């Protein structure tokens, strides 16, 4: 079974993010880039499916600028067989729908049994692309999955999706789209052999025209980015525990009116 895994390169959580001279974008120099954590769960799950079945192919896919190749190399080092880089200046400033259209067109060409995504990318936190790809292709979709089992004949997948108050278990006919929630697995670290081997694996660049896509204006655009307004300075309540607790409860009631 062929599995495509969509990943996004994002700034490391701990990295300083500043707004650039162009107020619609962040300053990208000096940023440490990583594969978005939920996407690592997706890659890991794809590798486990292949290992369990003893056959198949795992293809890592990203849409992004040149630097995003590094994210694909991380996936190849973890064990993905090859990678596709959706690379086209027309996709600068792509919204989720533009991204979804590009990925849907690639999935049509590649015709995998399963398309795996992370639940959301931790840069813009939209969490929309996986479901939009499913909608565009007319494929079944399950979001926020915590468990997955592909049947022996690779005709369906049983998933448990996280919802408020519990898990819902469904069978999805393949091909299908699923998105990974934390808890699905524990991603592996690339081995030295994996990292060396990754250099020999194929990363193919694909443009919009290669997918027969015409450029469309985004449906949602950034007006401006703003720094988070500073919270008013807080107050440290002094005193012994009993005394401090009494004062905090009073302040929450009388000053903050929070309880």
């Amino acid at each position, binding site marked *: 079974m062929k599995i495509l895994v969509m990943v996004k390169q994002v700034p490391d959580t701990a990295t300083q993010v500043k707004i650039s001279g162009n107020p619609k974008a962040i300053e990208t120099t000096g940023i440490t880039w990583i594969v978005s954590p939920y996407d690592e769960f997706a890659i890991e799950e794809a590798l486990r499916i292949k290992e369990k079945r003893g056959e198949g192919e795992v293809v890592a896919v990203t849409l992004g600028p040149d630097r995003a190749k590094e994210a694909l190399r991380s996936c190849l080092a973890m064990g993905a067989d090859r990678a596709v880089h959706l690379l086209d200046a027309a996709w600068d400033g792509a919204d989720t729908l533009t991204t979804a259209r590009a990925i849907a067109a690639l999935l049509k060409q590649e015709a995998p049994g399963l398309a795996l995504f992370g639940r959301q990318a931790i840069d813009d*936190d939209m*969490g929309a692309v996986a*479901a939009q790809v499913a909608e565009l292709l007319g494929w079944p979709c399950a979001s926020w999955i915590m468990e997955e089992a592909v049947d022996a004949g690779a005709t369906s997948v049983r998933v448990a999706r996280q919802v408020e108050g*519990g898990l819902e278990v469904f069978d999805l006919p393949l091909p299908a789209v699923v998105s990974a929630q934390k808890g699905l697995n524990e991603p592996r670290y690339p081995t030295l052999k994996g990292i060396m081997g990754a250099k020999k694996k194929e990363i193919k660049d694909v443009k919009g025209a290669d997918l027969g896509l015409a450029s469309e204006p985004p*449906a949602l655009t950034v007006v401006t980015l703003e720094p*988070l307004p500073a919270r008013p300075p807080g107050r440290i309540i002094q005193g012994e525990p009993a005394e401090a607790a009494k004062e905090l409860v009073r302040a929450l009631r009388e000053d903050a009116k*929070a309880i």
Partner: protein
Amino acid sequence: MAGAFWGIVEDDRQGNPKKVMAEVLGEAGRLAAKAGGQAEAVWLTDKATEAGLKQLAEWGAKRVLLLEGAPFAPYRGEVWSAALADLAGKESPKAILAPVSTRLRELMARLAARMGAGLSADCTALTLDGDRLVATRPVYSGKILAKMTWAKTPWMATLRPNVFRPGDAQPGAAPAVEKPSITAAAAMLKFVERREESATGLPELTEAEIVVSGGRGLKGPENFVILESLAKVIGAAVGASRAAVDAGWRPHRFQIGQTGRTISPKLYLGFGISGAIQHLAGMRTSKIICAINKDPEAPIFKIADYGIVGDLFEVAPALEQEFKKLLEK
């Protein structure tokens, strides 16, 4: 009707809209009043109760579009998005709003793709600027606010719970319920089972107005009972930091932060939590933040409205006693 501001209903699967709908319909009503239109609720369910319909009217829905039928439960994206797209095609709403929940986040994404519309997810503010709508949403772990706008209508957005103000309650308002005839599409997802989480007797984390949260400072899973006991007194949900979850002290569904749940309660109380960026990403839009930590240098004190530098094992029980005294008055 054309130009309406829709609120897609999230419910408890028992026929009652969730409280967050008061916020969504409140915002829909305020925007509609400025833009010229009205707030309408759109409810997909297998069973709506009379009380639930009345509740939607009291929260400000001038009209309730009810799509009621067995195919709508459990939620399956392909069935809901097809039905809603069909209805939106007939009604031409100006905006489609929904609260953030696991299923409505997915539904709104699907619907936006089907309609070729823009979707702004997890918004914390919506503002009319002339004839365009501008959404505010936290990005990059909440370190930056992005202002977004749409190329065309319908404007689609999901709203972070506990952030938007409910409208003025309209007690006794009678619901104007309509049941449009929509044929449900065949489902592709086959339902197998639902596994309920063990009930905590406490509110759901993302919906709670008060959240008590514990981190590494709790020293072990057995000590979460201290927070649960406090939470029961004030009707709070109990959350945990990634450190506590990764240590196996709490299941992942209780994790607050970047790789967990995003919360925005009226009151957040963090015990033994240092305040790593990835935790702040999940709670920094809380209205009042209190931190209890023995390390005066803990980063969480930088964003806290109130802080106590001290031993949580002494402060938490003392707080519980004080809250008890206050609430028994």
